[in-house]
């Protein structure tokens, strides 16, 4: 295929996920003050700590709420890949709205995963009617130590009801949600089978059996309802038990595997706007007779940030598709996504703030102060649904299994599944929630299959669309990736036995962090080899992949750390084109509203 043909082809993902550009059209440009969600209005709501009722209502007129309902239940949720991009679209406008509204999915997941058919139908009907849900897990004194929870659900003597008592705090939408899935103790033990999930419809509760704790003043997402709820012998029918008694912890952790993956959409939406508003500034701002973008250092810094976004983009897209194809591995994948992407985006936003200078600190003026709002709002993402450290811990525990299992794998047998995950021309399979597992049993297809990527790269030799120099660099960096992976596995092998509790040796956390980088680098390699001729000329040439691997593997020993200036210039040009044409900063640059 010639380079010219690559240029004019429209990637099929735009047609597969047509809803993304439809939503963009509906919402209009957030820079436009008359749009459904404008930066101006969002700033006003944020300053006054007002909940975005009107914006959410408009979003639901577009039937966005139906994306929280599986298609099998009459909803629109057919793939998490689609939901990832829709989440990015809303998040790039206002994280308060996406974080608040998407919490309905988190509240509903226990039912989609383990609920009875009757519960599923009932909840689907409620969400379709724009009633909102939330998940109530956290308690004031226990943080992430879920087995220490104090809220309890006690069966009544006649065995027909539960009496729910205790406080959940702080909870997103504790006050404003209509339905809660509450994690509560159903026996006096403190083991992993003492917790259950109960679905609570506030309309069905006696008003004197529950009360609210006031909204908490927060650094970001200031309009959101982060509050608490206290139950006092609230009567719940035993039919409101979700799944089996004692399955609460398992269901909750499985639900988190999905939402931790989707958190990538929140982060990537935020950084899209942070980069876009910075570009708006640097392209206009005159310094020493030229624009800030004309200054090489600024331009190259922006190009590097763009490359980091693209690395996260590859990881996010692959993971949203992987949820459907390798569901049982998501105790590992979701921990990597939730650990890596919010952290990297926080870092990118900080680097952008340096370029933006004083404008980053202003709460109005440049683009209605959206940068500082995104920066504040974004900082919550690495905290909720399991913090960065919780995810690193969870990954650390599995490192030994991952290292051992990979040693036994050839990669070849994984080819079909790798193609299903990474080939963006393909629709993903329907997700089977029953395949979610709390332990991947040492499996991680991306690193198990990494040697296979080498043979795929070898097949690209002689193609017009990639220069021999670039291909050789990619091959060398992939070999470095594998060599660093083997080095990491040797270190893992020498680690002391994991002790129960949370007193893991620091080395475990450091190696988990390194593992996340290697996994991210490998997803970028696979994303390229499976779509090399499908996503336009810039993607096809692979220069971005060289830069991406160099940046992601920067802390390892790699053959070449210095970034190629020509590649950076070409990246800056591509970034400028995407910005000028109003396209998403992604390997799949969806058209945005302008």
């Amino acid at each position, binding site marked *: 295929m010639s380079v010219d043909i690559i240029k004019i082809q429209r990637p099929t993902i735009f047609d597969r996920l047509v809803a993304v550009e439809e939503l963009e059209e509906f919402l209009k440009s957030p820079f436009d003050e008359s749009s459904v969600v404008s930066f101006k209005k969002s700033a006003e709501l944020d300053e006054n700590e007002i909940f975005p009722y009107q914006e959410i209502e408009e979003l639901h007129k577009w039937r966005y709420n139906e994306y929280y309902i599986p298609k099998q239940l009459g909803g629109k949720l057919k793939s998490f890949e689609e939901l990832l991009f829709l989440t990015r679209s809303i998040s790039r406008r206002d994280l308060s709205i996406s974080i608040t509204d998407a919490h309905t999915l988190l509240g509903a997941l226990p039912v989609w995963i383990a609920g009875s058919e009757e519960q599923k139908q009932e909840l689907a009907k409620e969400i379709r009617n724009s009633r909102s849900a939330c998940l109530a897990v956290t308690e004031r004194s226990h943080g992430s130590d879920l087995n220490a929870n104090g809220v309890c659900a006690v069966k009544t003597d006649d065995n027909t009801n539960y009496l729910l008592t205790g406080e959940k705090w702080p909870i997103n939408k504790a006050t404003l949600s209509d339905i809660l899935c509450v994690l509560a103790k159903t026996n006096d033990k403190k083991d992993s089978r003492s917790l259950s999930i109960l679905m609570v419809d506030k309309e069905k509760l006696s008003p004197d059996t529950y009360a609210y704790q006031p909204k908490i003043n927060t650094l970001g997402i200031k309009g959101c309802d982060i509050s608490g709820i206290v139950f006092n012998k609230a009567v719940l029918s035993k039919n409101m038990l979700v799944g089996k008694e004692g399955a609460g912890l398992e269901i909750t952790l499985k639900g988190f595997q999905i939402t931790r993956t989707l958190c990538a959409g929140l982060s990537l939406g935020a950084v899209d706007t942070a980069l876009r508003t910075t570009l708006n500034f640097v392209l206009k701002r005159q310094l020493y007779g030229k624009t800030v973008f004309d200054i090489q250092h600024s331009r190259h810094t922006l190009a590097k940030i763009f490359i980091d976004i693209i690395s996260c983009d590859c990881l996010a897209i692959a993971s949203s598709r992987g949820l459907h194809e390798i569901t049982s591995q998501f105790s590992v994948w979701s921990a990597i996504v939730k650990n890596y992407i919010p952290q990297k985006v926080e870092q990118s936003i900080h680097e952008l703030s340096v370029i933006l200078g004083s404008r980053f600190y202003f709460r109005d003026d440049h683009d209605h102060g959206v940068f500082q709002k995104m920066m504040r709002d974004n900082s919550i993402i690495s905290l909720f649904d399991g913090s960065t450290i919780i995810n690193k811990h969870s990954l650390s525990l599995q490192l030994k299994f991952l290292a051992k299992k990979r040693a036994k794998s050839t990669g070849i047998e994984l080819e079909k599944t790798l193609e299903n995950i990474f080939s963006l021309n393909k629709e993903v399979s329907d997700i089977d929630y029953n395949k979610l597992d*709390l332990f991947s049993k040492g499996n991680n297809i991306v690193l198990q299959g990494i040697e296979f990527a080498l043979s795929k790269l070898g097949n690209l030799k002689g193609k017009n669309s990639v220069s021999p120099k670039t291909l050789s660099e990619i091959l060398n960096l992939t070999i470095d990736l594998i060599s660093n992976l083997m080095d990491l596995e040797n270190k893992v092998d020498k680690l002391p036995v994991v002790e129960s509790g949370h007193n893991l040796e620091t080395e475990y956390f450091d190696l988990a962090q390194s593992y996340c980088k290697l996994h991210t680098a490998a997803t970028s390699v696979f994303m390229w080899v499976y779509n090399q001729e499908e996503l336009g000329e810039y993607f096809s040439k692979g220069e971005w992949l060289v830069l991406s691997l160099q940046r992601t593997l920067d802390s390892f020993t790699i053959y070449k750390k210095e970034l190629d200036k020509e590649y950076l210039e070409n990246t800056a040009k591509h970034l400028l084109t995407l910005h000028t044409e109003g396209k998403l900063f992604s390997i799949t640059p969806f058209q945005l509203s302008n």
Partner: protein
Amino acid sequence: MSEKTGAIEVAAKSASITEMENWLINRVAEHLSMDSEKISIHEELVLYGLDSMSAIMISGDIEEKLNVELPSTTLWDYPTIHDIMLFLKDKM
């Protein structure tokens, strides 16, 4: 199968069950940084401080040791070493 061969197999299985039980006690002791002699096979492991994630990892260790597939939550559902061994007996 002759009576003698059957008896030998029963004895071998019994020996391997004892060996497996000892291995499991030692594995749990390592996770808990405890002296293995202080672990009773009838005590719930959570009472020694074994957390939910470590319990899942020990289930993974057992899978490797026996080369069998187990639910990740095996130790959540079989809270003592005695319970786990009863569950594993048929799989060995």
